[in-house]
């Protein structure tokens, strides 16, 4: 039987994404430091829009697209359809993100922001085509692939709503308040793209890394249908009916779906043969646990009897991207990146003394978490109680953590250039 070297994508389809995302994380941390006061005001303002879009495209989506170019061939048991498309996707995404973020930051709604938005849409469509065709050519069909494919569809829907909002900024043609559509755009992106994709990929990686003996996949299937049903109701109500009457239903569906996923992960952990988990998985579990935080803030916001403070919405968004997404990526980077580099360093015709774990430093990963997590919690508390005395130290801790993360990622990748490893 043929095996999988043919499934390993070339470096340029993966590594530029990881390195750019790492650089973006440092830039985001610095931008947050210079806009601490903005976090105390309304969430709908230029600097926060710029930071959010850099976080979404430059950090979260950037690293996810790179990682999916590496992981899809493993999940679908098929070589990536095209290894040229990821290069185009990367260039469109970088150019589009720069234009979009700069335009939001200076709040210039002229041609660069539209060029940027369409450039990003092009990159997302090209990436989705590459993933869809790869999966279509594969004989593997399972719920994990369904999660990943559906997440890509929601990503395109999110981007289309975003572009519609941009035109609405300029020409004001939508029938109700702009903030109403912004809520739909943000929520579909968070639950439809990030959450579904992360559930899909982690459902494959967590049992694999833990060596779980029991995977209760029925919970994944239930989670898939609950979350998607919630999203469809939300999309119809938000875009077509333009009301907020059914929010209890679709939030309940999505929360129930997340609980099913958490139950699946719990079963994987309970049946795991590997009990000694490394730093990457420890950070990952912290991230999976932190998914509850935006949920709690959201529920508290909805239960608030007399118009909840707007800072709760800022805190909700920040806890999703700054907490769940960032912590998860920080952990998974040091599960995936060293392995990707190892694959390119080693040759099949010799016994490997070098292992992926030799390419990164476990202590640095834990130090990064030890700085990031308290920093994030301080910053989040600062948003909620309007205290710059909590936000500034939190921000500094997150900057240090992001610099460590960035330098560590570069160090891992630069093993490829190290003469010492050329003979492996």
């Amino acid at each position, binding site marked *: *039987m043929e*095996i*999988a*070297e043919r*499934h*390993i994508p070339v470096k340029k389809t993966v590594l530029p994404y990881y390195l750019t995302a790492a650089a973006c994380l440092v830039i985001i941390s610095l931008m947050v430091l210079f806009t601490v006061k903005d976090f105390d005001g309304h969430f709908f303002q230029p600097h926060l829009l710029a930071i959010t879009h850099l976080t979404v495209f430059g950090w979260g989506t950037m690293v996810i697209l790179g990682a999916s170019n590496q992981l899809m*061939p*493993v*999940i*679908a*048991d*098929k070589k990536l359809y095209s290894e040229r498309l990821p290069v185009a996707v990367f260039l469109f995404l970088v150019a589009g993100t720069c234009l979009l973020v700069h335009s939001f930051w200076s709040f210039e709604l002229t041609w660069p922001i539209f060029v940027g938005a369409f450039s990003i849409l092009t990159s997302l469509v090209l990436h989705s085509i590459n993933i869809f065709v790869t999966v279509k050519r594969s004989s593997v069909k399972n719920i994990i692939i369904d999660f990943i494919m559906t997440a890509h569809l929601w990503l395109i829907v999110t981007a289309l709503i975003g572009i519609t909002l941009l035109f609405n900024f300029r020409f004001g043609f939508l029938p109700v308040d702009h903030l109403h559509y912004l809520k739909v755009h943000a929520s579909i992106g968070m639950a439809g793209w990030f959450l579904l994709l992360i559930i899909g990929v982690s459902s494959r990686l967590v049992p*694999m*890394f833990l*060596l*779980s*003996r029991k995977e209760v996949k029925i919970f994944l299937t239930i989670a898939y249908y609950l979350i998607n049903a919630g999203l469809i109701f939300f999309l119809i109500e938000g875009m077509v009916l333009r009301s907020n009457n059914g929010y209890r239903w679709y939030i309940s569906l999505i929360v129930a779906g997340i609980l099913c996923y958490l139950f699946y992960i719990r079963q994987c952990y309970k*049946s*795991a*043969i*590997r*009990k*000694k988990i490394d730093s990457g998985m420890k950070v990952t579990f912290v991230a999976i646990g932190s998914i509850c935080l935006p949920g709690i803030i959201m529920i508290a916001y909805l239960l608030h009897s007399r118009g909840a403070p707007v800072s709760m919405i800022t805190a909700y968004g920040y806890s999703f991207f700054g907490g769940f997404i960032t912590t998860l990526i920080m952990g998974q980077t040091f599960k995936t990146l060293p*392995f990707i580099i*190892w*694959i390119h360093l*080693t*040759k*099949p*015709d*010799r*016994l*490997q003394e070098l*292992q*992926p*774990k030799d390419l990164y430093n476990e202590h640095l990963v834990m130090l990064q978490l030890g700085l990031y997590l308290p920093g994030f919690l301080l910053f989040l508390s600062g948003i909620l109680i309007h205290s710059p005395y909590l936000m500034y130290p939190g921000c500094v801790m997150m900057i240090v953590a992001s610099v460590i993360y960035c330098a560590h990622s570069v160090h891992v990748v630069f093993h490829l250039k190290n003469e010492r490893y050329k003979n492996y």
Partner: protein
Amino acid sequence: MKDIKITDPCYDEKARLLQLLSLVRDPELELNIVDLGLIYEIEIDKDKKLAEITMTLSTPACPAGDYIKGGVDLMAREACPGFEIRINLTFEPQWSADHISEAGRQELGW
């Protein structure tokens, strides 16, 4: 992998091969491939000078598949010099964490 019987005429060769195969590690799962249960069967025919290893991978698309198979080939050549080495890759039965040996489980902290 079934235990090698002491009465097996190729006991020494098989035991040596198994010992050398345990130097090959799965880089993702960080355990040697023998304790991981990736080696299903070893057949040695001294007359035909043939060593045949039936093995699997943790997943058909395992990105480290070539490296593991390369390591098995290398170790088999060292254990059985002058023998033809045949490596049969199978996914029947499919590998699962239940295949991990007691020693492997202890190493993983189970």
